[in-house]
């Protein structure tokens, strides 16, 4: 019987023929925890009666959610993570300013066929490299720290096929918002989602990670994209060679199938407080904004910064609302400096924050005031997400975000650029 990408990857990892519904005990290749989930995991591992992690080389610790620390109490929690890394000889501790955990995993650790478990819900991002990435909580992470194993139920898969060319100023973020609208915030609960089709083949890796990153916003366990020449070139750039093409079997069994025609997708926004309350920008246009945020594990990559800077340069206008730019990693920030993007952002009035999660998680670097409205490139617009339940968060692509920063209200990028 044919296999989906999830079934193939878990079969290779467990050296067994597995299909959806099977429950397997897996050896974990990479376990990641950050300053929001590592501290509890460290305590829980010790309570399990285990002093040392099973394999320090397979543990990745990242201080990205509240970094550099905004308070003395958080500094003490960061110190606990650093001490744990030291006690356990964990070489991969990424401290303040290194970047967002998922971007660091992509840049430095993840390769196809790995089982990647993160103490963060957006660990589903790594399926764009055909790794089985999924998020778990601190106790599951603690059990992996201790024993290197976790149990997984092999998920059923939804196939999302996207075909044809995208309109100009429409991006992968618009594709995933449209997908979320169709599947719903809970529609893919416990499922894997495969993104296939000619539109996906033509996306670069930055754009692909935006898609898989948001699988969890539909309840998904992981998002997957086949390994093709684009993926292989990306991996070769990191020194990873001899990776075969990886695609689902033609007779793989899908629980549901969706077909999106790319040419009909418009610039989209998710209207608060639901990720699946998605509308074309034209329906909410002219809504006044107080803040724009371009960054996060969804849309803080070099392509996103390039698109944003290009629009600012083309319009030659300063932003009318406070605009925060958060590069997803130090590498991305360095490249953005080398390519002159940061100068463009500063020249046109934006604020650059250190690589990390920034205001997306609502603890620092751009918390919203009562009644304020933010347009963000992040993945969640839940009530209170950016630190204030009395504020509203709209979600969009970087192009829509920067066009809106220039006008001061939600704006279809095509309306000011074409």
């Amino acid at each position: 019987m044919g296999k989906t990408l999830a079934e193939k990857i878990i079969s290779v990892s467990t050296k067994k023929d597995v299909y959806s519904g099977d429950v397997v005990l897996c050896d974990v290749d990479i376990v990641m925890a950050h300053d929001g989930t590592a501290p509890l995991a460290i305590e829980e591992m010790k309570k399990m009666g285990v002093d040392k992690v099973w394999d320090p080389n397979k543990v990745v610790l990242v201080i990205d959610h509240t970094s550099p620390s905004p308070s003395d109490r958080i500094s003490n929690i960061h110190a606990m993570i650093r001490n744990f890394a030291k006690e356990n000889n964990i070489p991969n501790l990424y401290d303040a300013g290194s970047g967002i955990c998922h971007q660091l995993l992509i840049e430095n650790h993840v390769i196809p066929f790995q089982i990647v478990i993160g103490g963060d819900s957006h660990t589903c991002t790594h399926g764009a490299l055909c790794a089985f990435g999924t998020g778990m909580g601190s106790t599951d992470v603690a059990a992996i720290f201790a024993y290197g194993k976790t149990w997984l139920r092999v998920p059923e898969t939804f196939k999302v096929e996207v075909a044809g060319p995208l309109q100009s100023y429409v991006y992968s973020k618009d594709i995933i918002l449209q997908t979320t609208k169709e599947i719903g915030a809970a529609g893919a609960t416990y499922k894997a989602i495969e993104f296939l089709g000619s539109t996906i083949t033509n996306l670069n890796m930055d754009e692909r990670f935006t898609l898989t990153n948001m699988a969890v916003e539909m309840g998904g366990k992981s998002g997957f994209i086949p390994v093709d020449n684009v993926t292989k070139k990306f991996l070769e750039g990191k020194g990873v060679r001899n990776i075969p093409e990886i695609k689902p079997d033609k007779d793989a069994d899908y629980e549901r199938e969706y077909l999106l025609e790319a040419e009909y997708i418009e610039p989209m926004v998710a209207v608060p407080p639901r990720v699946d309350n998605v509308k074309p920008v034209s329906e909410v246009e002219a809504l006044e904004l107080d803040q724009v945020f371009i960054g996060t594990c969804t849309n803080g990559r070099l392509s996103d910064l390039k698109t944003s800077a290009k629009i600012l340069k083309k319009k030659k206008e300063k932003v009318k609302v406070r605009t925060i730019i958060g590069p997803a990693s130090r590498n991305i920030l360095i490249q953005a400096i080398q390519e002159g993007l940061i100068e463009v952002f500063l020249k046109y009035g934006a604020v650059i924050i250190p690589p990390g999660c920034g205001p997306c998680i609502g603890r620092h670097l751009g918390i919203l005031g009562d009644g304020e409205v933010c347009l963000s490139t992040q993945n969640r617009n839940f009530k209170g997400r950016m630190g204030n339940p009395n504020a509203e968060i709209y979600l969009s692509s970087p192009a829509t975000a920067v066009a809106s920063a220039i006008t001061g209200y939600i704006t279809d990028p095509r309306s000011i650029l074409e």
Partner: protein
Amino acid sequence: MKFKGKVWKFGNDVNTDEIISGKYKYDTLNINEIVKHTFEAIDPDFAEKVSKGDIIVAGGNFGCGSSREQAPLVIKQLGISTVIADFFARIFYRNAVNTGLPIIECPLSEKVDEGDILEVNFEEGSIKNLSKNESFEFRKLSMFMLDILEAGGLVNYLREKKGFPLK
């Protein structure tokens, strides 16, 4: 495991930011310190109104959003005996079992009212609504999960077993 308690109702898609806001969770590992903020965005007085043994009945996709384990931990710390939802978001489901918060998937959100008294029996997979004299059945948890819950969570379970017994 058997529980009897009063029902608090919640809707669909209750997310982890609503259960416990991200702005509180980074500052401390002490659950007692943040428990007063449980469900603050939905009902600011919830933590004060709830009594030990009470039961939450919610719609679908309960616990969606982030992987924060503080979400089941604050609910458990408030003394909630069990959460019954039409279905749960996947990470919350694992986290609840792992932290020893008993959870049940059963579509009751349209069938019970706030304040009803329910009696839940995990071994039998049965729920009685004593206020309305109605009975419901739910699919029992796997033995593996029931064992973890009865141990009080994955930490105790792994400490007792010294590792994963699954092959």
